């Protein structure tokens, strides 16, 4: 029994932390969120691909680094901590689903290019109106084999070359060349306002879009890929919460009222202690889920549902609590905290919210 990162995993964490700290200070995060249409630059994406991050958890045979879910969780936590805007999670999510359900040909043709970063990917999950489950959809192919319908809240769609579309009965479709927003190939991509401005969202109008079925994998593999995506989102929320907690603690030490630092008052210090309880708990749950996804299939889906439920609540509560510690300044546009709050809240709802995953837990433990 050893519930700690190994040396390689620590090295990944440290490298990611240092790189992101250098390249994505919060001023850059703010610039990308508010001024860049796609939320990232081509140069930034090239740098991330040079680090091998898009293919981190993709098998070596498919052109990836062949690392595991724990390494992915470690990286995602650091991306959350840095609040670095990028289409990385979208690309990773598409890659995980194609790895689970793609044919040899699809993997060779598409997955390898996602892993290398030559292409950017995303996943179109939510119908109009969106349901509660990130795996339920009514979208089905028409008689001509094309897709017609609307997908909402698709992250990074304008940048994506590859879109995995979730269809009825858990079916997955592969849509290529969906960029441009010009209706080419029966797909129109329209920007839509997002709660979290660091992750751009779009509506996809599918009007006779020609898509290939992704149906070479078994149900268990696809379920695992969905669980990996949920765990990656949860890991990111842990990083966001860690950052928000550190900001609250630093502020509580610095800010003085009534002649002493506000962190000396138990109303404030106990709030900070509560943040630590939740952040450490969410981190434990995420690492356990990531480990189980690679090593213990018998509990992996349960562990991932627990992690997503707990980290969703933790992410929002800790960022909201940090805002309270900051007082009025935390409510201003000028302060960076609102970006963390919005990212945490958006993450809590992406990939199924806490209530959805608690219901999963109830089913899986047989309540």
């Amino acid at each position: 029994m050893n519930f700690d990162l190994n040396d390689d995993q620590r090295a990944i964490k440290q490298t990611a932390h240092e790189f992101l700290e250098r390249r994505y200070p919060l001023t850059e995060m703010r610039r990308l969120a508010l001024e860049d249409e796609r939320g990232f630059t081509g140069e930034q994406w090239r740098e991330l691909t040079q680090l091998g991050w898009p293919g981190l958890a993709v098998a070596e045979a498919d052109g990836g680094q062949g690392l595991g879910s724990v390494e992915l969780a470690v990286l995602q936590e650091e991306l959350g901590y840095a609040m670095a805007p990028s289409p990385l999670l979208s690309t990773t999510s598409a890659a995980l689903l194609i790895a689970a359900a793609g044919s040899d040909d699809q993997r060779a043709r598409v997955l390898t290019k996602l892993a290398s970063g030559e292409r950017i990917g995303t996943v179109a999950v939510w119908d109009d109106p969106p349901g509660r489950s990130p795996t339920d959809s009514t979208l089905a192919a028409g008689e001509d084999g094309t897709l017609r319908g609307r997908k909402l809240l698709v992250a990074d769609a304008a940048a994506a070359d590859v879109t995995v579309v979730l269809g009825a009965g858990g079916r997955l479709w592969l849509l290529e060349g969906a960029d441009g927003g010009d209706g080419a190939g029966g797909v129109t991509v329209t920007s839509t306002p997002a709660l979290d401005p660091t992750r751009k969202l779009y509506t996809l109008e599918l009007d006779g879009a020609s898509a290939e079925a992704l149906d070479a994998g078994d149900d268990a593999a696809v379920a695992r890929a969905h669980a990996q995506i949920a765990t990656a989102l949860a890991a990111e929320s842990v990083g966001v919460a860690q950052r928000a907690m550190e900001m609250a603690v630093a502020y509580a030490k610095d800010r003085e009222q009534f002649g002493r630092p506000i962190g000396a008052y138990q109303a404030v210090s106990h709030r900070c202690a509560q943040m630590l309880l939740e952040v450490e708990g969410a981190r434990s749950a995420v690492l356990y889920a990531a480990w189980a996804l690679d090593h213990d299939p018998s509990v992996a889906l349960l562990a991932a549902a627990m992690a997503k439920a707990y980290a969703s609540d933790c992410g929002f509560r800790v960022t909201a609590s940090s805002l309270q510690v900051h007082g009025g300044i935390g409510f201003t546009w000028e302060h960076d905290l609102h970006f963390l709050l919005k990212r945490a809240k958006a993450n809590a709802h992406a990939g199924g919210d806490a209530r959805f995953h608690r219901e999963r837990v109830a089913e899986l433990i047989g309540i």
Partner: protein
Amino acid sequence: MDLTPSAEERAFRDELREWLQSNNPGPGPATDEGAFDFRRRWQRTLFENGWAGVAWPREYGGRGATLIEQAIYNEEMVRARAPAVANVLGLAMGGPVVIAHGTDEQKQRYLGPILSAEEIWCQGFSEPQAGSDLASLRTKAVRDGDEWVVNGQKVWTTLAQEAKWCMLVARTDPDAPKHKGLTYFLMDMNQPGVQVRPLVQITGEAEFNELFIEDARIHNENIVGGEGNGWAVAITTLAHERAGLALALQMQVKLLLDRVIGRAREQSYNGSTAAQDAVIRERLAQLYIESEVLRLNAYRGLTAQMKYGVPGPEGSLGKWHWAEINQALTELAMEIEGAAAMEGDGPWTYQFLRARANSIEGGTTEILKNIVAERILGLPRLR
């Protein structure tokens, strides 16, 4: 990272499981006269088979178990619903303190009878005026030749009526700053100067006692860790209390949660069962998640402690988290009963009431939050 037990850990667990299968006498009599003798006999059996004091070094009669093995031991004992040992405080705190701070003579004299439950130990720390602010305690010891004369009052003294020895912290230098003037004694409970009075709690039973100490005498050689070092020695005692404990508590929560879920499945509720009610269902799921998080945090803390020698931040959070979970769980259990919760001897009455102490005993939640805020987060002290 590897969350499966190592070969050694598996062997340890399997050996214990197998032994328990043929030797576990079950829960034994409920809280009555025979109960403590039953626990004493059980500990004797554990001792004779090398299963008492597993955390103690081998040279002192223990098993030299690693922290993870101690956690496995606690988990397995709860899972098997094995009886509690008699000398809980002697094994968890008294022995480790003597091993860490005692003289060779003290080790020779005290350790054996702790393991075999021949001599039961209790803990004289808290006082009516010194609860969370333990260092302000007033019980005083005055030197008289080779002996010390002790006067004062202690409270929350578990097992005082059974105990031969009391781990007593008393003020020996009234002029020193409050953390400095304390000394850690081993006081013989069998003397006229020590009176024990049971303290009846809200459940109606008396787990705890008050201790009235009037001119009790302690020989100078019964000081542990040296005169004036009582605070440091007491802190060691409390630190020993924690190792692996969260895992045992977590397992108790799991067993209770199983019972509550079982009850929710059969209890009719709004035309269906309580387990099918969306709100109850979600709360049960959340409590399951919380109890798993408690377990995972505990294992992460133990790994950190084994690797780096000091408990990680996770370890300090366990007791606080457990109290919250156990209280929420017993509250939900009562809610599932509906109006029947008014009964005085319902299935959850005792647990529901007993759980109210969880956030007070062994360090209040407020004090634990102070510790987390000050020592882990580095926030300024109010005092």
